């Protein structure tokens, strides 16, 4: 009973925040603290509920779950989907991340949006997002998950296009929605496939069924999971549907941190972890996921190398890190992928918020070439960002190290993995170390290239406080999931994996301890080397960069233009479709279909005109008709 109330409050608190801010608070800059306060409070209440629920869960022992059904939503024929929610070890962690990181970002936004003309709208959307995200992770059936799934997409659309006066930003919002819809269509097909084969879409029923592994491409489980994975590539920005995420940076930076780094974009991984018992039964799908994940990790990291917009660098980094998570779940290391989801939520939210602090302090400058030396002017932002940097490049003992290393090791050792996948992962890690160090160097280190007219200032406490909390989490957040090989030395258990043990069926790793240590050593050493190289290039001796750029001009152009993927999509897909539609309208619809009906009316009219000549009032002529008619009828009768 108390749990029902807790879940209800958890969900309704942000929903009420949305309604209050959306309907009652005036769209006025003077109300920014009020609007932000309401939204942060709503989010905070949610966090407390999530915390209590999580603690309840830890006390309930193994295989525990809190299940609540509120009402029947849609019952047609054999199809049944209730408004029912489920807090289990997987969703328990998610709601903590969502409401925890979410609350910090709400607080941060109070400072960040203090100059905006319509803060109430912003905060109402942010709360609505929180609500939808919670529905997505807590929903006990695929349909309810889909409700949240589309709901977060809608909020993402609204928030990316928040400054819609700028046509480019409005276009970015639309692009995000449409690309996500492509994924959603796949999700729907996956849902249909699961329902028609297993006659249920409810997780608690599905999880009790046995799914016999099937080979090849055409088994029902494989098709279902592949379709669902299409959904995941949309929401979690994987090849080939990643193109919306970099554009999504048009939204306010807290949005990028919350939606496009920490929570929404991880929904694809969450969905696969949630349904891990189905996915393991489709090795083909798992292979596809791993390959797509590894390819995306590598591809996006390489684009990140030469971006100049601080948010774009982080965006491609997010795409790349999401690729790691998919690589992890694709080789059957669900808990490792999920672990990386959590640590990434900490350090990437931190870095986005840090970038936001920089942008705020620089008065809306986002180009890293116009920054430099900010460590002195923005010390808090700098030191917290530093923690994020150390975490993402995989510095030992930082959160990102444990989670990324676990994924790489599993990619190497799992029966579903391979050395090639591992190599891709390592290469991605090397590039990550490079572009992140470059980002640090251009933004915080070296000499200042800031325009004299810009008065750089450190951000207010509402913004720096979340940074500090997330910085701490970026360090210690990984300590709950220290791999056995390392943990056994110090006697630290892998709490994270044990926590998920009953909900998630990982594919066992096969390698030896020596291999595990040495692969880890290789990736850490290479990443360190790469970071040193970037440091040398961008801080010590930036004078050699132009020469290098000239030498590899073709390659540099290709990469800094993001491999022309967007251009290709427009040329190959979007433009032809628009042109074809114009053709359909102008030719098929107006000239052919409509004209044909005219032709028919012409025939009728023509016949009528000829017939009219016959009806001329001449009785003798009528008599002739009658005679003809009789002859015709008689001959017809005799012929038979």
């Amino acid at each position, binding site marked *: 009973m108390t749990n029902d109330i807790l879940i209800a409050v958890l969900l309704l608190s942000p929903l009420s925040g949305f309604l209050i801010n959306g309907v009652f608070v005036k769209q006025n800059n003077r109300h920014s603290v009020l609007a932000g306060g309401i939204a942060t409070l709503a989010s905070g209440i949610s966090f407390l509920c999530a915390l209590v629920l999580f603690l309840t869960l830890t006390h309930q022992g193994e295989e525990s779950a809190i299940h609540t059904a509120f009402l029947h939503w849609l019952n*047609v024929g054999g199809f049944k989907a209730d408004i029912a929610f489920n807090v289990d070890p997987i969703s328990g962690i998610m709601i903590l991340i969502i409401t925890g990181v979410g609350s910090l970002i709400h607080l941060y936004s109070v400072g960040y949006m203090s100059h905006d003309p319509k803060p109430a709208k912003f905060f109402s959307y942010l709360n609505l997002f929180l609500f939808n995200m919670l529905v997505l992770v807590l929903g006990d059936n695929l349909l309810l998950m889909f409700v949240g799934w589309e709901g977060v997409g809608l909020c993402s659309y609204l928030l990316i296009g928040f400054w819609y006066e700028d*046509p480019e930003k*409005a*276009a970015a919002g639309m692009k995000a929605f449409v690309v996500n819809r492509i994924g959603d269509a796949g999700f729907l097909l996956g849902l249909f496939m699961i329902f028609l084969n297993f006659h249920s879409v409810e997780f608690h029923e599905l999880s009790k069924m046995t799914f016999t592994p099937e080979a090849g491409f055409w088994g029902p489980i494989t098709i279902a999971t592949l379709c669902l994975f299409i959904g995941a590539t949309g929401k979690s920005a994987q090849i080939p549907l990643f193109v919306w995420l970099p554009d999504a940076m048009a939204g306010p930076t807290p949005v990028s941190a919350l939606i496009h780094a920490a929570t929404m974009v991880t929904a694809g991984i969450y969905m696969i972890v949630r349904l891990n018992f189905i996915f393991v039964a489709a090795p083909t799908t798992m292979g596809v996921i791993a390959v797509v994940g590894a390819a995306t990790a590598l591809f996006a990291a390489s684009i990140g190398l030469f971006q100049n917009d601080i948010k774009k660098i982080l965006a491609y980094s997010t795409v790349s890190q999401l690729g790691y998570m998919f690589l992890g779940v694709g080789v059957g290391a669900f808990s490792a992928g999920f672990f990386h989801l959590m640590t990434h939520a900490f350090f990437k939210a931190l870095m986005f918020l840090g970038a936001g602090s920089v942008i705020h302090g620089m008065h809306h400058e986002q180009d890293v070439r116009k920054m430099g030396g900010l460590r002195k002017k923005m010390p808090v932002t700098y030191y917290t960002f530093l923690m994020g940097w150390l975490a993402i490049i995989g510095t030992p003992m930082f959160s990102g190290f444990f989670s990324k290393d676990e994924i790489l090791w599993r990619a190497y050792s799992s029966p579903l993995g391979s050395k090639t996948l591992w190599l891709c992962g390592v290469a991605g890690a090397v590039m990550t170390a490079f572009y992140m160090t470059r980002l640090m160097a251009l933004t915080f280190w070296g000499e200042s290239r800031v325009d004299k007219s810009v008065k750089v200032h450190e951000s207010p406490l509402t913004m720096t406080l979340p940074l500090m909390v997330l910085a701490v989490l970026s360090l210690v957040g990984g300590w709950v999931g220290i791999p056995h090989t390392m943990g056994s030395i110090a006697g630290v258990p892998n709490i994270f994996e044990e926590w998920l043990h009953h909900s998630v069926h990982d594919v066992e790793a096969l390698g030896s301890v020596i291999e595990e240590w040495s692969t880890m050593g290789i990736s850490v050493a290479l990443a360190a080397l790469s970071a040193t190289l970037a440091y040398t290039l961008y801080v010590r001796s930036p004078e050699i960069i132009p020469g290098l750029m000239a030498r590899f001009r073709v390659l540099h152009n290709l990469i800094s233009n993001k491999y022309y993927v967007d251009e290709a999509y427009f040329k190959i897909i979007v433009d032809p479709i628009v042109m074809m539609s114009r053709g*359909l*309208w102008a030719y098929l619809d107006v000239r052919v279909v409509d004209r044909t009906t005219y032709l028919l009316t012409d025939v009728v009219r023509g016949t009528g005109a000829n017939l009219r000549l016959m009806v001329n009032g001449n009785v003798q002529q009528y008599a002739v008709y009658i005679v003809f008619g009789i002859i015709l009828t008689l001959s017809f009768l005799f012929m038979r």
Partner: protein
Amino acid sequence: MILTTIVFLPLVGALLLFLLPSDKFVRILAFIIAVVEFVFSLGILEKFDGASAQLQLVEIIPWIPQFGINYFIGVDGISLWLILLTTFLTPITILASWKAIDKKVKSFHFCMLLLETAMLGTFLAMDAILFYSFWELMLIPMYLLIGVWGGDRRIYASVKFFIYTMVGSVFMLVAIIALMYYAKAQLGVISASFLDFYKLKVPFEANNYLSPQTLMFFAFALAFAIKVPMFPLHTWLPDAHVQAPTPGSVILAGVLLKMGTYGFLRLAIPLFPEASEYFALIFIGLAVFGIIYGALVAMVQPDMKKLVAYSSVSHLGYVILGLFTFNVYGVSGGLYQMLNHGISTGALFLLVGMIYERTHSREISKYGGLAKALPLFTVAFFITTLSSIAVPGTNGFIGEFLILLGAFQRSKILAGIAVTGVIWGAVYMLWMFKRVFFGSAGELVPEIADDSHGDHSHDHKSKGEDSHKDHKHPLFDLDFREIAVMVPMLVFVFWMGLFPNQFLDKSKASIDYFVQNRTSYHLTIKGDVDTSNAIAQK
């Protein structure tokens, strides 16, 4: 008597209008009649037993007994919500036309109420000749609505609308007469009752396109397919919609198009089970094609109203797809989507009409930045857009989801193609939304200064000539009447999206019966009235 009251109350009201002296009273009376009518129709909901698949609240009065023709009306789970949709939309459209219609006000409201009687009669009629009479009666007021109160090319559009519909219904009439003779041959008495028609076995041969069932199926299907309209019989629709006045478009899209889909569900499919099964894939194929074709053509329309009109082709494609799956998901979804389309496309036409009233332009390229200038209007339009593109939580989602689920059960390939409709839907609606509402202020849109700098900007602006409120820009936000028009529509968007069971439960028994007994569909009457007695009287 409740059903008869409901059918003829608008007609009586329409005649009363002629006693009134001024236009103002005419509007008020017409509105009151429509509201009373809606309240009365809630009585059907009250009395209707959703657990029964039978025909309810039946009334039979002999009309032309020599030919077995009766005044025979009744309601079941299939027609129930369509009746309520009709009585719900009529007062809303009358309220919406309060200012837009300023000539021949009396005749206009007469037409609207006459049309309501005709529409309700069509949904309730259980006698083929009665059905046909109401069906044709609908044409006249609609023809006048377009032809008298329409746009510049109204005559062309109304004649086109008339001829198209006429052509279809003539064949239907022939088929109805043929069925009456079949009734005489097979049942011994001539009858025009649907219930008797359902009992007939019309001969069917699989490969013979001239077998009686095939011919008659297509005679009915042609009439209905034109009304829906299905590709390639849809080209009257964009013209009719664009030329019709806003109330005409709302009723046309909201109710009249459903006559076609209702006809398939009530007559064409259950009367000719073998033929409809045999040709189902053609209809599914055309429906899927229509979904995508309608969406793509809608995408490139420069005129908002035309865009919405083509979107109807796409949405109605879903309905046909659902009905021809013949399974419970598809048919439930199809029925639900009929209601959704009435709400969401009706709302879209109302909204487009509202800005047309202000600027006399529907050209998308002349707008831009409306979100800033007209915040309330934007919210209403956005919610309607969400409903139209079937975002979960809105009514549109339930319908599309069920239809696609049903389609997937029938054919995975076709469902896979149809499901891309959810992408195209988002593309054409959001693209229009972006061009009209986002970006900087367009040609017809007033510039709004940011309120961000508070008092400072206010001081600065007050020096300008036309920044004060007393100088009203022609494009202003929704007024009280328009809010009253939109709120009920938007309430239903969410109500139907969040609590679909409340609606589906009333129709469940009828749909289940339809799906399970499609090949031996024998609708019966709940309660005392018996058709055979009524027919046997003479």
